[in-house]
């Protein structure tokens, strides 16, 4: 049985966003993030939210794929609202709950921060949804290339990232197999308190880590056998490059986003 999990969330499609160079997309997302932290009011957030919605439509990815990422941060968002809204015995309050009260100003702030988190998550997930892992790693490598001047091994880090992505589904399959095998020997993973449950995972994590280290060693040998000796001098099957349209899109979008952040 093969699990139908792709690497990351990449949804292949043919859209202007998909065709945009990965490094340009990273640049735009960076500008979006900066703008998100510059805007001071709901007007700015509303504009950025509109940008996310518009981009989702242009990129032809299903809306529920974008929204799916929010499940992970839902708890944080709720916590943010609550932590900002509740105050201890304030003089003014919208609603009182014993010594705690909901403060109007705090509530506004909480919602603002929560919406910002939401836009941050949806905005960046648009990047991973429209860019394949290999393109993404390549884009990151090119964006960080200047760091090579200060002797940071950007190429090797990018290779590490690609290999990690390649092994996510394989490792997940292995973990599932080991878990089921230990269950077949009577292990149970959902009984007892938190400490007992954590201990119950040892028979899964130990062999998994052992296999991962063993595999890393074997993989290194195989890579050496194919003449890998670091990322210096390596060429690519498909050499991604920024075209004029990529530069233009990145600069225009980036400038508009930052301007919006400064003004709103």
């Amino acid at each position, binding site marked *: 049985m093969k699990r139908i999990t792709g690497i990351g969330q990449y949804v292949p499609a043919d859209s202007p966003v998909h065709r945009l160079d990965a490094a340009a997309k990273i640049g735009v997302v960076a500008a979006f993030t900066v703008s998100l932290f510059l805007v001071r009011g709901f007007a700015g957030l509303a504009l950025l939210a509109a940008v996310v919605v518009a981009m989702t439509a242009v990129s032809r990815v299903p809306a529920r794929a974008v929204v799916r990422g929010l499940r992970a941060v839902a708890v944080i968002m709720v916590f943010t609202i609550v932590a900002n809204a509740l105050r201890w015995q304030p003089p003014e309050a919208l609603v009182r709950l014993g010594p705690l009260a909901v403060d109007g100003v705090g509530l506004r702030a909480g919602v603002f921060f929560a919406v910002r988190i939401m836009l941050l998550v949806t905005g960046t997930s648009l990047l991973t949804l429209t860019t394949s892992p290999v393109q993404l790693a390549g884009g990151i490598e090119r964006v960080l290339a200047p760091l090579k001047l200060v002797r940071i091994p950007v190429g090797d880090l990018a290779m590490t990232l690609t290999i990690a992505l390649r092994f996510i589904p394989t490792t997940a*399959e292995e973990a599932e197999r080991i878990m089921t095998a230990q269950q077949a020997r009577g292990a149970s993973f959902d009984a007892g308190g938190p400490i007992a449950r954590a201990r119950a995972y040892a028979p899964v994590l130990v062999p998994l880590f052992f296999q991962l280290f063993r595999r890393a060693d*074997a*993989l290194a040998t*195989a890579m050496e*056998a*194919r003449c890998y000796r670091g990322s210096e001098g390596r060429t690519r*099957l498909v050499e991604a490059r920024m075209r004029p349209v990529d530069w233009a899109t990145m600069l225009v979008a980036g400038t508009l986003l930052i301007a919006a952040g400064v003004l709103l």
Partner: protein
Amino acid sequence: MRRPSRCMKGPCTPVISFESVGFRYRGDAPLALDDVSLSLEPGELVAVVGANGSGKSTLARLCDGLLAPTSGRVLVDGLDTSDPASLWQVRSTVGMVFQDPDDQIVGTVVEEDCAFGPENLGLPGPEIRERVDAALAAVGLDGLERREPHLLSEGQKQRLAVAGALAMRPRYLVFDEPTAMLDPAGRRSVLEITERLAHDDGHGVLVVSHDTAGVSRADRVIGLVAGRMVFDGAPDGLLGDPALLERVGLSLPPVARLAAALRGRGLDVPVAAADAESVVSALWR
């Protein structure tokens, strides 16, 4: 006849040669290989057999310079594998395929992995494309270029590993127990590929195994016992000698035993019978 350690002028006879090679994993460990001498030439299919622990995998890794001999030397087209300066050349001349396909695949999609070797060699994009297309076609994976590796069957994954080695355009290919993790269909396709690579495409192919499956197709068989070479000759010589088979730790597949039983009854059946067809054809031409 000693060959020069570096071909300075004129062509070298292309060959991988082991000259009295010994190998120890650690200073105090027993010898994993003991005084082994052999040669592998382009166009040959050589099978190396032995039980687990006989030194077969060590031998495979010595072919590629992944290990350097503790004594003796290994020459690949005249280059000494112990010489760090030669390793680059050695490794692009000798392609390796290991036992577990998942331990060899680094690309996120098929064509990316196949391109890994040529990319390391610093070749230009269009040439990489050409090599990848040719290698994938040679192993029957054309059409699956954009497939993610974890969606391939074990046999397909192993063939991808072969393609990855072929993309380096090596003169020799060394397979270390390539079929251990495959089902019978996968085993057949990989063994077929090894035969084709040697006899049709002219590569020097070495297949290490503890299984007699590929032995009958080989031009030569080398048998290892505890690191020492006890046999180097035609498959018949090994398959027809029960005492030697037992020493090497191999068991005959049922069809070979049938051939032996028929010979015992006075019928002329080839020793190295690989399948039912060859037995029946030998009896009734």
